[in-house]
């Protein structure tokens, strides 16, 4: 499949099963969550969002994390303990980067499963990122943008404008929830 080839070319796709589940149809979602609601007859349901995330978790979590650290190199400031991040090659091969990507995506998965309670889902993480990790919330927005680009590059046309719209709202809501406890 074209998408797997292009990712394999970069060495970024390391999933053992290269075929993520095909995105399902777009059933109308009855859920109305924090502006995650479908609009103008376009739908991108939470189940579809979950499907996308599953696909990412299977093989692309490393891709997502290294992309952030390479495209926005100043984000490396938070990962001094991750070892060698001195070049794109080093970042690509760094197992801690991959592991962290997986952690972050798993968190997103929790958000998608619990769209009504995103603020609560991330309350503790918000406090952690403010009080202990001292992470500028701008980084959550950068990360959200990267996630969307990785989704787009992997799912190509299946990542329709409506899906992108829904995902933009989701990443905004997550970024907001993560920043909510900052003081």
């Amino acid at each position, binding site marked *: 499949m074209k998408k797997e080839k292009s990712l394999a070319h970069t060495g970024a796709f390391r999933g053992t099963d290269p075929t993520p589940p095909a995105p399902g149809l777009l059933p109308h979602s009855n859920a109305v969550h924090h502006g995650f609601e479908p609009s103008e007859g376009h739908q991108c349901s939470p189940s579809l969002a979950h499907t996308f995330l599953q696909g990412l978790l299977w093989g692309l979590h490393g891709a997502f994390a290294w992309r952030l650290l390479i495209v926005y*190199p*100043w*984000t*490396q*400031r938070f990962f001094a303990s991750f070892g060698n991040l001195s070049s794109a090659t080093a970042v690509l091969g760094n197992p801690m980067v991959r592991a962290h990507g997986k952690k972050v995506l798993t968190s997103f998965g929790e958000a998608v499963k619990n769209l009504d309670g995103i603020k609560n889902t991330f309350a503790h993480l918000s406090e952690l990122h*403010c009080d202990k990790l001292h*992470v500028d919330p*701008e980084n959550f927005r950068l990360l959200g943008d990267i996630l969307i680009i990785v989704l787009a590059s992997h799912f190509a046309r299946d990542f329709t404008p409506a899906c992108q719209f829904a995902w933009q709202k989701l990443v905004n809501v997550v970024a907001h929830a993560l920043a909510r406890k900052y003081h």
Partner: protein
Amino acid sequence: METLSSAEGQVGDHQEDFGAETLERMFTAYPQTKTYFPHFDLHHGSAQIKAHGKKVVNALIEAVNHIDDISGALSKLSDLHAQKLRVDPVNFKLLGHCFLVVVAIHHPSVLTPEAHASLDKFLCAVGAVLTAKYR
């Protein structure tokens, strides 16, 4: 240029105060900016804020005095921000905005629309120089 010099001249007499007030306003209005200063005492009147405020204003004055070569004048600071500090670029706008607020409060007559435009443009240019070597 004259506008900027005039504005900076007025600021220059109160470097420490303006700088400190700029930072305090930024930390209060945009609490996320505090994440870059976990090692600072951020209480009102803190000596660290005063000292850092003075540094910031001195850098701005230096830039105004070399308006035709801001990147040369701030080259070392640019290196520092790229290699060590790595402050997200969005924050320079926040700092610049708070600086304008401080000028507006203390010298409202300086901040004519034209001067405001000049100063804002200048502050954007400084932010751009400081983040120019990020990648």
